[in-house]
């Protein structure tokens, strides 16, 4: 890591999912006290709200272009923030939800800023995952919870545990190897279903979920069978939740071992 005497710094904060409901006081203070604010948000009205918090607010959305690799877009976003850090500015990157959850850009920008010797850190926010637990009444502690980026589940061999919840993110672009599309079609979702069908029956009920971004909005919580998933309307903001399909299996061998330990603790030698 280099060291620098520059006053430039970077903080990436989360605005939460719902306008007015989730922004924490520390994140707000970082926005208000920054020299320049960059943003990538989930809703145009949320953008209008952010613009009231600071005079110099710059969109990172402008780098997105259908047909151009998102990887290039992400690097452009990182570079846009670092240019201002290197110029000695206090830079605040504002991202919807949690800035570090399913968000490559904030992590990379912080990593590179630190490598160049600048102060850089992240402040958490309320993520779509947090909203999902509240809206769907799921406690990840009850049965456990696996999370995968949907394409990664196709690109790599992963082990699915059908006794736990399975939550799939970015299903709307599942299977896109070009990283240049904003959506993939039913045929791509069929590949996902074929992979999932190794562990779940096609009649298994899944939930298509989208968090509310405005206080007048309601979360989308639509139930469908796994087999119907290719035909469902699933956009960039939708998440697919697959509830457990099998009961958890007791582990008698380990339980017996723990019982023996309990007895040993209860019987002082």
């Amino acid at each position: 890591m280099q060291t620098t005497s520059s006053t430039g710094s970077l903080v990436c904060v989360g605005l939460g999912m719902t306008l007015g409901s989730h922004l924490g006081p520390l994140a707000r203070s970082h926005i208000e006290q920054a020299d320049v604010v960059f943003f990538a948000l989930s809703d145009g009205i949320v953008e209008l709200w952010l613009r009231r918090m600071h005079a110099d607010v710059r969109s990172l959305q402008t780098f997105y272009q259908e047909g151009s690799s998102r990887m290039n877009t992400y690097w452009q976003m990182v570079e846009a923030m670092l240019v201002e850090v290197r110029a000695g500015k206090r830079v605040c990157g504002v991202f919807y939800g949690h800035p570090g959850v399913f968000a490559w850009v904030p992590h990379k920008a912080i990593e590179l800023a630190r490598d160049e010797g600048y102060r850089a850190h992240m402040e958490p926010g309320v993520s779509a995952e947090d909203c999902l637990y509240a809206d769907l009444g799921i406690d990840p502690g009850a049965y456990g919870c696996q999370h995968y980026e949907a394409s990664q589940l196709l690109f790599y061999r992963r082990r699915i545990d059908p006794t736990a919840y399975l939550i799939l993110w970015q299903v709307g672009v599942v299977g896109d190897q070009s990283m240049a599309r904003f959506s993939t079609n039913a045929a791509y979702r069929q590949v996902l279903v074929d992979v999932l069908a190794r562990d779940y029956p096609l009649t298994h009920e899944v939930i298509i979920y989208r968090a509310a971004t405005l206080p007048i909005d309601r979360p989308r919580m639509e139930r469908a069978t796994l087999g119907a998933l290719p035909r469902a309307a699933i956009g960039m903001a939708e998440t697919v939740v697959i509830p457990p399909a099998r009961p958890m299996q007791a582990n008698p061998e380990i339980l017996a071992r723990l019982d023996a330990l309990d007895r040993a603790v209860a019987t002082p030698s």
Partner: protein
Amino acid sequence: MFDVVDFMEKMGGDAQLSQASDSELAEALAATDIASELQSVVLAKNAQHLEALLVAKPVCVLLSPPGPPGSPLHAPLPPPPPLLPEEEWEQYQRER
């Protein structure tokens, strides 16, 4: 001037207003000088129409690239914790 974006912020952060009935919401809106067309859209809870009226830009919400393995588009993932050398992993598998 208190406008519809201010109203959204107030509604999002107010325990009572965020859970308000239609009549309570109408009453709260009537106490503002927000244009009647916007009030109607808020009351109808039509977020898309509200975006259109406010000329809010559509957004892309993708920030996490998986990328296919071995492709130049593959995002460099954070380094994993130290992995077992292949021969140690194979020995562990044999001994299981």
